[in-house]
């Protein structure tokens, strides 16, 4: 029925299209409308031809030997090779968790829509592909540098597990679906146990692009509760609490993240008694969390300010305590409004995790740098090969997330209502 309804709509749009069309009209309108537009077109056309030419020559001549040799170093750093199966198991856990979680969200959405008496529009798989294809392309891009078939097969297994989990998610009992927030928690726990439990590899040896991802996700998740508290503190009516929060937030927002990382690497050891020293990874994670909390606090504050005061008064009028008003009336609306800004913060942390390389953690950027110092690749200008390679990973991640945030912004109607 849907298809029959959709066809005439497409026909109408064809009829509405301008009568005078065709490449010549389009070019006259969009490229050569005035003399200076023609000039601009000529200049930019030449520039683009030159860039495309250089890029094409670069892509044809580029020797990716260094990437093929070092791909594992880039992705996982010096993760012990005999433990690599654990890493794959962790990937399987992740895809399974994502599959279950996605299904749980869909089921929750449908239930809530049914309760509210609204129709529920489930996004079809073409939509999902359209949204996340760059990530798939990135995986294919990575696999194209592998030297054996094993990683490809294991990736296919991981994808199959994800799809199977989504499919099996239909059979999850309802009480589990109601507590869908528990899935990421359990998943994270399993992820850690699979990697580090029973004589595995602790986080001190988590390196490469893997550590960029872990630091981003862990940094935001750990910073969120702290940031939420700071935001509430900044909006508090108690002057002492307010001033303490403001001082913390403004101080940390005024300094660059690298100073916090330096503190984590060199000074944090002085602040805790000598017997309780943490590893570099943990110290940097603490520094990142403290830093991000200040930014998240500002994001959340924006959300809190966007909730009209009438909502608070409505909560009070039905006799809710201040805490319950916050928890059930204000916060749900505030947090909904700040999801796009949170994604923005997520992107900026993702890019900033590269800074850990300055204080000596072996992340993707560091791995890329030390690979150019290897004897067989030394001083051959291979930075021009490996740095763009690393850039692709950050670009895809940031691009997909920023597009998602724009989609959410539209979907949630932020700024409309």
């Amino acid at each position: 029925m849907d298809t029959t309804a959709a066809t005439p709509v497409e026909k109408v749009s064809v009829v509405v299209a301008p009568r005078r069309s065709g490449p010549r009209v389009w070019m006259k309108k969009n490229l050569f409308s005035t003399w200076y537009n023609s000039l601009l077109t000529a200049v930019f056309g030449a520039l683009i031809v030159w860039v495309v030419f250089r890029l094409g020559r670069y892509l044809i001549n580029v020797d990716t030997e260094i990437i093929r040799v070092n791909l594992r170093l880039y992705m996982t750093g010096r993760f012990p090779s005999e433990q690599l199966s654990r890493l794959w198991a962790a990937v399987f856990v992740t895809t399974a968790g994502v599959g279950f979680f996605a299904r749980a969200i869909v089921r929750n959405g449908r239930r809530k829509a049914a309760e509210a008496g609204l129709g529920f529009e489930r996004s079809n798989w073409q939509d999902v592909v359209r949204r996340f294809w760059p990530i798939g392309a990135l995986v294919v891009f990575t696999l194209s540098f592998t030297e054996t078939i094993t990683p490809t097969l294991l990736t296919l297994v991981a994808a199959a597990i994800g799809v199977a989990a989504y499919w099996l998610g239909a059979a999850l009992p309802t009480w589990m679906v109601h507590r869908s927030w528990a899935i990421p928690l359990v998943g994270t726990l399993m992820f850690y146990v699979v990697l580090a439990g029973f004589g595995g590899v602790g986080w001190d040896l988590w390196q490469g692009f893997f550590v960029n991802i872990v630091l981003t996700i862990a940094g935001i998740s750990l910073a969120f509760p702290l940031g939420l508290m700071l935001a509430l503190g900044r909006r508090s009516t108690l002057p002492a609490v307010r001033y303490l929060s403001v001082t913390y937030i403004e101080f940390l927002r005024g300094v660059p993240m690298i100073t916090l990382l330096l503190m984590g690497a060199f000074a944090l050891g002085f602040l805790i008694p000598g017997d309780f020293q943490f590893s570099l990874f943990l110290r940097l994670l603490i520094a990142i969390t403290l830093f991000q909390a200040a930014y998240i606090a500002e994001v959340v504050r924006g959300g809190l300010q966007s909730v009209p005061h009438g909502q608070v008064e409505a909560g009070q009028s039905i006799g809710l305590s201040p805490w319950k008003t916050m928890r059930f009336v204000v916060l749900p609306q505030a947090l909904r409004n700040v999801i796009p800004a949170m994604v923005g913060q997520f992107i900026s942390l993702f890019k900033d995790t590269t800074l850990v390389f300055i204080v000596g953690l072996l992340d993707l950027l560091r791995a890329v740098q030390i690979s150019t110092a290897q004897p067989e690749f030394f001083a051959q200008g291979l930075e021009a090969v490996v740095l763009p390679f690393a850039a692709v990973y950050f670009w895809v991640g940031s691009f997909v997330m920023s597009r998602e945030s724009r989609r959410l912004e539209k979907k949630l109607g932020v700024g409309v209502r």
Partner: protein
Amino acid sequence: MTATQTSAGKRPPLWRNVRFIRGALQVLAVVIVLGAIWFLGNNLRNELVAKNLPTNFDFLGQPTGVTIADSNFNPGSPVRAALIIGIKNTFLIVIVGIPILTVLGTLIGVARLSTNWLVAKAAMVYVETIRNIPPLLIILFVFNAVILQLPPPRDPATPLDWFVISNLKITGPGFAASSGAGVLLAVAVLGLIAAFVVGAWRTRYSEQTGQHHHRVLWGLGVFTSIVLIGYFITGRPVSMSFPVLDGRVITGGFGGLGAYFAVLMALVIYTASHVAEIVRGSILAVPRGQTEAANAIALSGFQRLRYVILPQAYRIALPPILNQYLNLAKNTSLAIAIGFAEITLVTFQAIGNGYPAPQLILLLMAAYLLFSLTISILVNLLNRRLQLVGN
């Protein structure tokens, strides 16, 4: 139950008294924070003493043991002097970077909305590519793939004989000062003040008579004539100086390290992509009627932007652009990755030479806070001028 019924005249118990709860909560918060600070400070003192490090800031006077490229700084100079050079180098990136990235960001933001399809798409590709890449990566790339590809210092390029370009240092024409240059500088400052006074007078004149003010022309004229007169009266203390290559030593001219240009270029490229998005959004936020009004009084495309759209767009754009200026100031710390001696690298080296990290990092943070505060105060002053009255 009885308590609520006979509450008239009775005070609520202490744990239900709002004033008491508020006071107690605040005292609790302060006590927790102070306790944490005391605990950490105590640990800090103990650990510093245990590791035989100083617990105060007296080490600032001791020799650093580091050298800083492109300055007459030697390892015997005190830590304090090294930090000051670091601050100066950070400042040099910020002060040169802000104007360039403002202009570049505006141009790209306007280009994204161009009616010319090719220009708009090119600007879009630029913005979407650059702003999704970590700035650190861009710095490394520009340094490795652009600056280090320049000729080596022993055989630099000398285009026009005006520049000496090597991958270590880039030098161009500059000014050489002799005695009396200080007086000329004072005259120039006077000229600047005079130019602003004249500009203000022209503005008032224009408002009273409706004549065109031409205040930029007038101001420039006043400034140039004052400086020129001063130049000849003080006996021509300043002359053009071109870099001269003598073996590997460059004398005269004005220039900077290759690493400096790498950081500057990379950060301008990166931050401009963010500014471009802000400018684009702000232009879109200017009501469409303004464009139509400008068209109705037959302004040209440039006039429409210059006199109608951009002034209103900047009013919206300034606060977020301020954030980008602050980001630029904070991102200068990434120069540490390519060894440009700004404040973070200097601190890093001092820590490496055995000076106590906690104090040095505290100083580093204070320096950045100072930068951030200065920039926000200046831009907020500008912002106040730009905002509509009554807003």
